[in-house]
């Protein structure tokens, strides 16, 4: 049972990891926490739905197209709405993100309104039995896709010049400006990557869940919990936090009470911030007065 729970938690946690990672990418480069990110996730899912079901595109190219579109949307959002108020208080930035999320949700609701949309299953595969353990196609697909993507992401960060530059900016944004990096373009890029990665989370969830304009809200909180657990601002921490959160939910549900699954994320947030505010890998979250 433990193995099975772990596997279930892993596949759920991979989605959280992706969302936490995408939040972190934006946060690290722009210090903005995207409070509207849940709706970016939803928008990714809807775009892939449009392409697959309405335009008849195959799933993989549809996913790629949806991610590209969300990249562009992320860039546009940063240029059009975030940059004009960047100097202001972070309260304004937080609300701007929420407003953008509302716009996306409003559009989704206007177009799809009162329909609940089922996405056709894309990874049909007979489950694999390993002793007592059942491995489903969904799990293989989600874990596989996210793993490949994470390898790619962290590989790029560690091995390429671009990645090293990004790391350098994370270390010292001021230094980056000094060496002539175009910070505006870098921020655009981060927003784009963040939006696209978040969208992928939505795309992966779409076939196993039902699409509705409100599907983003719960993912936002899960993303926050994962970030907090892993250490706010740490890329690796976000991923690990996501996975651990997914597994913790399953354990709490199976060994304690299934009613706890929903609040595991909140309990994690409160507990981590009070007990070990820096999370597993982050820097200290606390200011001394």
């Amino acid at each position, binding site marked *: *049972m433990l193995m*099975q*729970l772990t*596997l*279930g*938690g892993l*596949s*759920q946690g991979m*989605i959280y990891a992706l969302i936490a990672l995408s939040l972190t990418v934006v946060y690290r480069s722009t210090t903005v926490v995207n409070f509207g990110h849940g709706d970016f996730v939803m928008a990714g899912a809807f775009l892939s739905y449009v392409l697959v079901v309405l335009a008849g595109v195959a799933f993989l190219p549809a996913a790629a197209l949806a991610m590209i579109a969300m990249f562009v949307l992320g860039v546009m959002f940063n240029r059009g709405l975030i940059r004009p108020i960047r100097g202001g208080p972070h309260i304004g930035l937080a609300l701007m993100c929420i407003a953008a999320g509302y716009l996306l949700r409003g559009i989704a*609701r206007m177009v799809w*309104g*009162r*329909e*609940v949309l*089922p996405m*056709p*299953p894309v990874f*049909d595969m007979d*489950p694999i039995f390993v002793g007592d353990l*059942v491995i*489903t196609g969904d799990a293989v697909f989600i874990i596989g896709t996210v793993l490949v993507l994470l390898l790619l992401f962290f590989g790029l960060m560690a091995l390429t010049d671009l990645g090293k530059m990004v790391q350098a900016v994370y270390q010292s944004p001021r230094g980056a400006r000094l060496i002539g990096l175009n910070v505006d373009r870098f921020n655009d890029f981060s927003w784009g990557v963040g939006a696209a990665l978040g969208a992928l989370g939505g795309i992966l*969830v779409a076939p*196993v*869940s*039902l699409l*509705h*304009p*409100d*599907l983003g809200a*719960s*993912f936002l909180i899960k993303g926050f919990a994962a970030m907090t657990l892993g250490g706010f601002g740490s890329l690796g921490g976000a991923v690990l936090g996501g996975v651990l959160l997914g597994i913790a*939910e*399953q*354990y709490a*549900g*199976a060994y304690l*009470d*299934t*009613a706890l*699954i*929903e609040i595991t994320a909140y309990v994690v947030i409160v507990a981590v911030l009070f007990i070990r505010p820096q999370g597993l890998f982050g820097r200290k979250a606390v200011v001394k007065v």
Partner: protein
Amino acid sequence: MKKYISLLAAAGLAASPLLAQDAEWETEGLSDDAITIGVMGPFSGNASSYSKALIGMMAYYDKVNEEGGVHGRKLVAVQEDTACDSAKGLAAAKKLISQDEVFMLQGNSCSGVALALRPTIEEAGLPWIVAHAVSDSISDPLAANIFHGVPTGGANGRAMAAFVLSKPDTSNVAIIEHSNDWAHSYSNPAREYLEENGVAPSLELTMERGQTDATAQVLKLRQEKPDFIIAALYEAETAIFLRDLKKYGMGDIPVMGTAGTDLENTLKRTGDFDTVKNYYVIHSYVDNLDGPLMQPWGEMIHKYYPDEELSTFSFVSIGSAEALVSALEAVGPELTRSKLMAALEEVRDFDTGILSDPISWTADDHQGVKGSAVAGFVDGEPTVLKAWGQPY
């Protein structure tokens, strides 16, 4: 100061039309060629898919109007959005009653909103036919002007439990549900009915909206090995739950679902017949959604709302609209609110041709629909059932 305030309050009251239940009040919202009906529903917000019920109902108004209306009067729907929010719903009801001055109300999908509305509408006194929300407390205790036109949660829940117990040798029943009022409106009466019959649920599980995995829940079920599972889950979660159930080798345990799901869509969502072959749902209708008896209703909706996608909600409010029209016919051309309410109380065993159970309203009981059928797969075909193994 206090005195002035109470004076002002009294002045405000006198200015409001609520207490003036006179002749003018009796025919408010009525003209020679129209009856205005306030239709409240969640036309926006996260429960907006429920508003399909009201679209179906308004399509029926359109049909009646096209056939000449009732005693020369057309049924004019005045739509108001509740967004499934109690404050917004109250505003909608007060607007319909005091600003739009409609003759009567029909509709409302969300039970929470309906519960919040009840005192206001009861005080206003105009007829309200509850056309979708299921909570029993909306119409019980009796309110003179509130009529329930769909099977209540109690009726549905009891029907679910009765069906579960109609399977021979059922003694171990588990319940899995969302922790929201929608799910509780089914599970609470089901639980009561089970307990009345000496079967306390052996396992109570929750699964929240948006979860894409039911491993934890299913593994608990595997330890308990129930004979029957009652699942008060929305469509997506139902599919996920059934899929995981089969995955862990428990595909043979029958599962009883709510009216929020239907067999056809659940099959479509899981994409695998084996997964759903033991799934049963509350089915308030006389036929399968795409069966010959339901087809004309679907065509009617599409005639007036060509783009409307049909779901199991689309048909649920039509029956009470039929009962309303029959009561309006019975009153005759000299219509008043009191006469209508009296006529509604005369509706007996009214066969709507769409709901599986008839509508009966009496002076003591305004919960008009007392039961529901169940649908399940028989020989691979969706079939409406009365009890375990008994076709409708």
